[in-house]
């Protein structure tokens, strides 16, 4: 499989392993070791996409992650992956990619008409127009703009692949496995440090793979392979290939490993990608440098690319991207590219250097190519591919040279992004003509090209030193090491970027179509900070984050506003350093596994009974049990309520928070956290309590039982369990450490069931027999007790949420399912009915008990009718603030019962309350309905509500206004207790 652009030999590809792939539906060939970009180039596919704004034809521009142009959609269907840089995609057999942001194809794109409007569509044009008529923006202009938004498309299908997360800890994290990174890893690894070497490429070596230099007398690429082999032998060194470190965060680094992106689909159980969170004591940033392009008219045509990329394609991939190549450079490095390309067999037509003088031995590198010094490229032509360049020589003469490829080399920009993530700044170095970083994250060093140590010898030496220094920081001795020998010359950077010429656009940001004129216009309009420039022109905001455009852009701005680059500064780099799939940050926690699911002990037994479950925090609770023939939830719930009120029902209440409180001072402690008194609670008794936040509002409620002198169990609401625990620990550890109190959550330990209804005692008697006396005399309302059945400890509480004679019985959770079944079994004789949270809720509303919708964090005890519980004899959390003017204001809405005047009317939570006859308005609003239920006993809907001066208004007819559900009806205000106001049933 040889194509015209694949060189006959050379490169690090495996020519014995041909690979076939499709692009835009056509099949092509490449080799293992290719990237999609190198394989496309080998197949003469330079033009692969269109630019964002003007839809100009664009070709492959680089050979790495800085790529602005060659964005493709990889794979298809649910696995489609838009905006993928062809230059970073490892070729695999069957790879399927397509071009994007063009229609019908990159070669012929209808939206290219945008180019005609080019002069109009300059920076910020949209801020100045599209304002009239006002309604047109959303109806017309914006839809048109949105239609041309974006590059690739998401499939809108659920991502079928999986992701995972992993943590790693090391002495030294080395970011990048070029010569500097390899040398750092080697010296630290040899010293015994735990090293992680992360490299985003699929081969270690960095520029070594692209260059023809020698190290220790072998080719650079072979040296990299040997170094890798040595590192791989060290048990304390971990090499992470295909892993890009994307960010420095406080105390950790984030990295993304593309575990199976180089495979057609992930094999079974293999994630697509893995998110690494790496805690490293030391870090060496050896991320290399990126070549800077040059800004001149017509600099965006397919065929114009970074000179170093040409070199990479030739040396690493055995591809010559063009037939006749020109090099336009501002430093020696361009000449090296020319030399390597020639050596690889490509034709270099001309080398143009902006410098007036170039050392003779450097000029020799260009062989017999034409050479122009003090010259620049001033124009280009060729629509779908470069055909000609115009050279303006030192004398101002122009001439046209026919080439299909132009390599541009504007020097190198150190890749310091990650070093600035924690707030460090890039400082412009006049000497290096580059931004360097000084204020790095703790423990970080920078080595190699990322520190503008340009030569290979320097990269190796400083890399090795940095590795050794990191090792010594973690207490590992420096051992003397044989220096690694390489000889090459620095090429240096020169501060020139912008060249004048024809009136054609000179692009700075190729992806977002930002031109030199746009930069100038922004400056003219007062956008003089680089950050404002960026936001006004969108320079550097595309998927490449300006890796090739930022320095040129701000340098041009500096020129426009007559400031130095040091004064102008650079825009802030932010993570992720390379774009990262959103799915990777979620790992396993997607869809159903978003949060853990908590199941109670009776879950399986309930599920077997055809139960509808509902989420309660992380718990799943039975909401109602569907009996045969029931078609509507209200039918089921009504049956359950009736069954409890007339017989007996069982409800799993295990999800309530349970906290064991032990020690001799628990009574005192509880007195301080509850508004009512607990120190007087006798052993064997339960009391209802309310606790406030320090700001005086109600935090939670629940019952607390005193099991023995020094042992209490508190229950909290299901959703507040964690919050209350945290609060109690705070009160104890921070406020009153002198108290002898110990506490621990026992929510998980106990399965607990409410046994409610007039026959509940009969059921328990049948169940427990002699094990425990449940008679009213021995075990009255609000009693509690512990006993054993065999060796199994059980607890019984005589508490009632339903208003009926009721108990709660608890067993260790492992026995919970058996206890549930035993209750059902023993209850058969009494026609026992399991009931869910809906029936529970109906009954608590009938009984006027407050719950989550009243304990909403905005109510005080008085609002809930619990004001009289507030002890005046002691201090407690929240007492002082609860005395504030607004918290004791009688106009504050207070708990009432509500029933519809028209008894067939359904009530709904959230309806607003008004006095009869007033017009609904913010200042006439008197409250709202908090809870509603269909009361089977009353045979109509009832509700609880918070109503201004509520208790004074019993008997009044008020208005409920519910416009979001088109409701508007009358209610009668009554007492919130709808059944058994005297509590006779409770005490039966």
């Amino acid at each position: 499989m040889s194509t015209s652009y694949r060189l006959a030999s050379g490169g690090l590809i495996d020519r014995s392993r041909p690979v076939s792939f499709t692009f835009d539906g056509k099949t092509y060939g490449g080799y293992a070791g290719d990237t999609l970009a190198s394989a496309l180039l080998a197949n003469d596919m330079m033009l692969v996409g269109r630019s964002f704004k003007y839809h100009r034809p664009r070709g492959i521009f680089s050979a790495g992650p800085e790529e602005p142009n060659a964005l493709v959609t990889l794979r298809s269907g649910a696995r489609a992956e838009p905006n993928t840089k062809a230059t970073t995609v490892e070729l695999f057999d069957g790879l399927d990619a397509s071009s994007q942001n063009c229609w019908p194809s990159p070669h012929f794109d209808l939206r290219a008409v945008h180019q005609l409007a080019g002069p109009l569509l300059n920076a910020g044009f949209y801020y100045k127009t599209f304002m009239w008529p006002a309604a047109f923006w959303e109806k017309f202009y914006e839809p048109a703009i949105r239609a041309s938004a974006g590059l690739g498309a998401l499939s809108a299908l659920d991502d079928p692949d999986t992701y995972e997360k992993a943590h790693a800890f090391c002495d030294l994290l080395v970011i990048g496995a070029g010569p500097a990174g390899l040398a750092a890893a080697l010296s630290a690894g040899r010293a015994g440090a735990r090293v992680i070497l992360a490299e985003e490429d699929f081969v270690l070596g960095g520029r070594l793979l692209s260059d023809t230099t020698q190290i220790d007398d072998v080719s650079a690429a072979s040296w990299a392979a040997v170094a890798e082999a040595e590192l791989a032998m060290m048990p304390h060194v971990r090499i992470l290939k295909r892993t890009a470190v994307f960010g420095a965060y406080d105390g950790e680094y984030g990295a993304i490993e593309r575990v199976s992106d180089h495979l057609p689909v992930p094999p079974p159980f293999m994630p697509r990608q893995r998110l690494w969170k790496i805690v490293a004591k030391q870090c060496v940033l050896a991320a290399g440098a990126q070549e800077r392009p040059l800004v001149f008219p017509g600099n965006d045509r397919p065929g114009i690319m970074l000179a170093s990329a040409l070199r990479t394609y030739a040396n690493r991939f055995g591809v010559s991207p063009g037939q006749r190549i020109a090099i336009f450079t501002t430093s020696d490095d361009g000449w090296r590219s020319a030399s390597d390309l020639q050596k690889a067999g490509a034709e270099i037509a001309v080398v143009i250097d902006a410098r007036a003088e170039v050392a003779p031995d450097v000029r020799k590198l260009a062989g017999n190519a034409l050479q122009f010094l003090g010259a620049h490229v001033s124009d280009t032509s060729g629509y779908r591919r470069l055909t000609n360049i115009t050279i303006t020589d030192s004398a101002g003469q122009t001439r046209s040279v026919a080439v299909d490829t132009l390599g541009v080399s504007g020097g190198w920009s150190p890749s310091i992004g990650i070093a600035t993530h924690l707030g460090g700044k890039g400082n412009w170095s006049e000497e290096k003509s580059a931004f360097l970083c000084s204020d790095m994250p703790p423990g970080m060093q920078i080595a190699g090209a990322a520190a503008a140590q340009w030569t290979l010898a320097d990269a190796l030496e400083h890399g090795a030193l940095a590795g050794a220094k990191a090792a010594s920081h973690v207490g590992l001795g420096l051992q003397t090491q044989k220096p690694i020998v390489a000889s090459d010359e620095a090429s240096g950077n020169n501060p020139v970027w912008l060249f004048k010429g024809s009136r054609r656009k000179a692009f700075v940001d190729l992806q977002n179509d930002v031109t030199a004129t746009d930069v100038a216009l922004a400056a003219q309009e007062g956008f003089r900070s680089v950050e404002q420039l960026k936001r006004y022109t969108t320079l550097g905001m595309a998927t490449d984050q300006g890796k090739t455009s930022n320095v040129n852009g701000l340098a041009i701005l500096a020129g426009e506003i007559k400031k130095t680059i040091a004064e102008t500064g650079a825009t802030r780099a932010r993570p992720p350093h390379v774009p990262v799939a959103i799915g990777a940050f979620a790992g396993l926690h997607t869809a159903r596994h978003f949060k853990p699911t908590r199941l109670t002990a009776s879950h399986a037994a309930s599920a077997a009974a055809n139960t509808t479950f509902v989420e309660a925090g992380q718990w799943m609770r039975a909401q109602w049990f569907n009996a045969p023939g029931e078609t509507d939830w209200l039918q089921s719930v009504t049956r359950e309520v009736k069954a409890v009120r007339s017989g007996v029902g069982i409800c799993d209440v295990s999800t309530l928070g349970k906290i064991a409180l032990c020690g001799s001072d628990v009574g005192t402690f509880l007195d301080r956290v509850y508004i009512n008194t607990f120190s007087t609670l006798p052993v064997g008794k339960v009391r209802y309590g309310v606790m406030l936040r320090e700001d005086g509002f109600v935090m939670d409620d629940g019952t607390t039982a005193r099991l023995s002198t020094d042992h209490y169990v508190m229950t909290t609401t299901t959703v507040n369990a964690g919050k209350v625990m945290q609060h109690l620990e705070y009160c104890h550890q921070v406020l009153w450490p002198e108290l002898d109190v110990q506490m621990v959550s026992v929510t998980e330990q106990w399965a607990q069931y409410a046994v409610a209804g007039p026959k509940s005692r009969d059921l328990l008697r049948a169940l427990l027999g002699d094990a425990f006396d449940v008679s009213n005399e021995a075990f009255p309302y609000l009693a509690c007790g512990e006993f054993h059945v065999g060796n199994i400890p059980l607890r019984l509480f005589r508490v009632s949420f339903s208003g009926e004679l009721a108990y709660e019985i608890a067993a260790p959770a492992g026995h919970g399912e058996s206890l549930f079944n035993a209750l059902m079994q023993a209850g058969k004789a009494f026609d026992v009915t399991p009931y869910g949270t809906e029936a529970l809720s109906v009954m608590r509303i009938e009984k006027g008990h407050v719950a989550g919708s009243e304990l909403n964090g905005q109510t005080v005890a008085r609002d809930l009718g619990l004001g009289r519980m507030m002890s005046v004899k002691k201090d407690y959390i929240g007492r002082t603030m609860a005395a504030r003017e607004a918290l004791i204001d009688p106009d504050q809405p207070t708990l009432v019962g509500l029933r519809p005047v028209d008894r067939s009317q359904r009530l709904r939570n959230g309806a607003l309350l008004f006095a009869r006859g007033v017009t609904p308005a913010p200042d006439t609003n008197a409250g709202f309905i908090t809870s509603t239920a269909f009361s089977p006993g009353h045979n109509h809907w009832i509700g609880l509500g918070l109503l201004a001066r509520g208790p004074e208004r019993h008997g009044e007819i008020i208005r409920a206004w519910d416009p979001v559900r088109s409701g508007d009806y009358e209610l009668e205000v009554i007492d919130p207790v709808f059944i058994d106001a005297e509590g006779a049933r409770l005490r039966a």
Partner: protein
Amino acid sequence: MRYSLTSLFRQTLTGHKGWTPQWRDAAPKAEYDIVIVGGGGHGLATAYYLAKEYGLRNIAVLEKSWIGSGNIGRNTTIIRSNYLLSENISLYELSLKLWEGLEQDFNYNAMVSQRGVLNLYHSDGQRDAYARRGNMMRLNGADSELLDRDGVRKLYPFLNFDAARFPIQGGLLQKRGGTVRHDAVAWGYARAASDRGVDVIQNCEVTGIDIVDGRAVGVQTSRGVIRAKKIGLAVAGSSSRVAALAGMRLPIESHVLQAFVSEGLKPIIPGVITFGAGHFYISQSDKGGLVFGGDIDGYNSYAQRGNLPVVEDVCEGGMALMPAIGRARMLRNWGGLVDMSMDGSPIIDRTHVKGLYLNAGWCYGGFKATPGSGLVFAHLLAKDEPHPAANRLLLDRFRSGHIVDEKGQGAQPNLH
């Protein structure tokens, strides 16, 4: 120069040579009638309305960095008035109405786009809370609709309806909600204010507040002393620091809120969606980026950046709600300093120092308030009394207990 299609054409023909700076890069004068500290959205809007509505001219906005560098330049651009409490709805609804006419008013296209804001609910309790909220919105003149599951599915068929940990039951939709091009708001107000004579002074940090006999008389700045008859603070995340210059302690903590943008994608999400069972909300910009965010990191911070756990939390929420974004890539992630107040609602009031006024406590939601906040703050500064739409967002509410706590979380800023 007035912006219009005509002026754009004319400039195009002359090579865009005639465009002038959008706002004058003013140098500080010795004295102003009113000095606004903070060149964010609120400060610039305040100056604009002072000039436009209250006829004041001698005004300066002092910005320590470049205008737009604060939260106005880093928020997720959502505008809405879907609040629960009348104290808040009145202000945010005033603001929403101002947004609706803003561009014609200040002659700048800020791309106000009312594509709808949808807050999802996943439980009966949430539905009820949204019903109450929707009713409160209607009561205060805002629009709201309560959708059921099918209503949501019609709008957003690709959400996760079938394999969810917390299934979507429906949503509260405010059709008039939407997004605005955030930076353009700063630039538009700066330009319009500057055109009305306001000095917009960048790189001018206030380092001291001069108080004589209990009255503020001027500010010390990195560019010298500036005298002022009245001083308005609108410094968002820096509120506590600047107020401390006048000896005040505020019911505010500064926290970091992160935001995210994906690579540019073809339109997939028309409006704004907020997940109700996790910390995640999302919209898509006109450029195609998915703009999304979640909860604050939860610890005091002045660093303008956050950490990975929250990045993960947000993306987990995203993948729970719409697993279709799994293969979209996060392009950039940043943070902003949010002024979290003790009840989660803003404070717009006089202070114990005469002539010193405070506009703060916007938490993560002050962008949508920008025009409204500017107008009511201008009113307060000009008239020395609160604007009727913001007369219950005062400082003494914490002492009296008339707090405006939408979420019922109490005096714990990181829970709001």
